[in-house]
């Protein structure tokens, strides 16, 4: 068994664990911005699109599909962070 593969599994496990621990502590009041924020983070799949785009080759169809993925992911990232910022601003001014 490949050691990098095992390390990757370990990282996955640790990230899930840290995520679980930290997110469990987030109060109910912030659950909506948490969701829109994690929406934005799930747009990180843009990285995969960036990595495979130059390797798609000649197929126009596959190229278009990657471009769709890029559009979706970018919308997620930009829109998600922007709307989360808007929501958190409403919570901030109460301080």
């Amino acid at each position: 068994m490949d050691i990098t593969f095992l390390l990757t599994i370990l990282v996955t496990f640790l990230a899930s664990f840290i995520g679980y621990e930290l997110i469990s502590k987030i109060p109910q009041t912030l659950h909506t911005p948490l969701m829109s924020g994690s929406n934005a983070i799930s747009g990180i799949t843009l990285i995969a699109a960036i990595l495979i785009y130059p390797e798609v080759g000649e197929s126009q169809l596959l190229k278009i599909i990657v471009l769709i993925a890029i559009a979706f992911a970018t919308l997620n990232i930009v829109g998600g962070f922007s709307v989360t910022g808007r929501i958190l601003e409403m919570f901030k001014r109460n301080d």
Partner: protein
Amino acid sequence: MIEIILLFSSVLFIFALKLFGRPSTAHRANSFAMLAMALAVFSAFNFDFSKYDPAFYITIVVSGFFGVLISKRVQMTQMPELVGLFNGFGGGASGAIAYVELSNNSLVMSDFFVAIFSMVIGVFTFSGSIVAVLKLRGKLNNVNTTIANIFSAFLPPLILLPTIWKEMEILTLEYFMLLALIAGIIRVAVIGGADMPVVIAFLNSLSGIAAMSAGFIVNSIILIIAGALVGASGIILTLLMCAAMNRTLIDVLKGGFGGTAINNEYDKDPISTSPEDVAIQLSYAESVVIVPGYGMAVAQAQAAVKELTNTLKDKNIEVKFAIHPVAGRMPGHMNVLLAEVDIDYEDMFTLEDINSEFSSTDVVIVLGANDVVNPLARTDEDSPIYGMPILDVDLAKQVIVIKRSMSPGYAGIANPLFVNDNAKMLFADAKEGLENIIKSFELV
């Protein structure tokens, strides 16, 4: 160099989650996460920006522009739809990437299965989210569960079908994609509106899991870490929402719950009240608790809630908000609507924090909430909501329910609270009812 940037980015993501734990630091969390994302995306280019053609950059700029536009224009009452839509985009993007990798490369066996998994989850998330958005917008009614049951029963043979045409190996990917697409549509179509908090949280988790598995295909650790964080966040919220309804995730996903009246008989007539009487009653109170529900969002009554809160606070009456975890259509929906009109988050209380206080509360105003304040959840073992944690508003000295009619809530059952001796009904839409109370205050 790239590795150091990525390491920094991963640490930033985790720090961002840590900062998210308190309302006062949460806005900084967003900036941290944005920086982490920018670094991660930048590093994916590996300092070689010439590999990409204009179509690539144009797509990024145009969709980024639309992202900003949407986020600036969306109203806070539409947040469930927006989050639903973004879940779909995230899942769709990961699904599309997995499809391209599957059709373009000869992947090693383990990567092949991860890619199939990523594609199926991504496409399922995409179609399920689109249906969820249509439901939230009221464009789609509940679908009969029989169709879903038939589909589920035929799913195993449908999945195994390609083994028969294995020799040809044509369109197998497209076939699985289609199956996932249909599964997403059917699964969400049978789930009713008030179960949407669970559905949205669950799809949120799936979009993270799809991204995480895409990370395995392209060997990107940061993608795996960020995807796992989103997956964990979605799972936590899903389980919290299920616990708040005393139902299992499987039970919610099976669908068919609620939406139809099972029993809406009352053995006595409710006591109807007027805005003037409510205003008088409130002015004699020392403590008031407001329980908002989906009805507040539908009626866009947040501003009126704020005005009433100000009026009461000016009279030195204590005002608190009791928010049930599944009130509204997504986790935290009510909190955001109240924060939008400048209500202090210190005044918003969770079920655990406020339930012991109801017995010493003078007046409770139930605003467009129903099942979450139904005492049958405590007393009637045969009730479909039995065992669900509810806000014990019936223990307060006086309860005022602002509601248009005696119609049942999502669970389709009568709410004995409405005919309780300490309860009065103000038959009105949430916004109109509150505005009339505020007007009456000026006369008192």
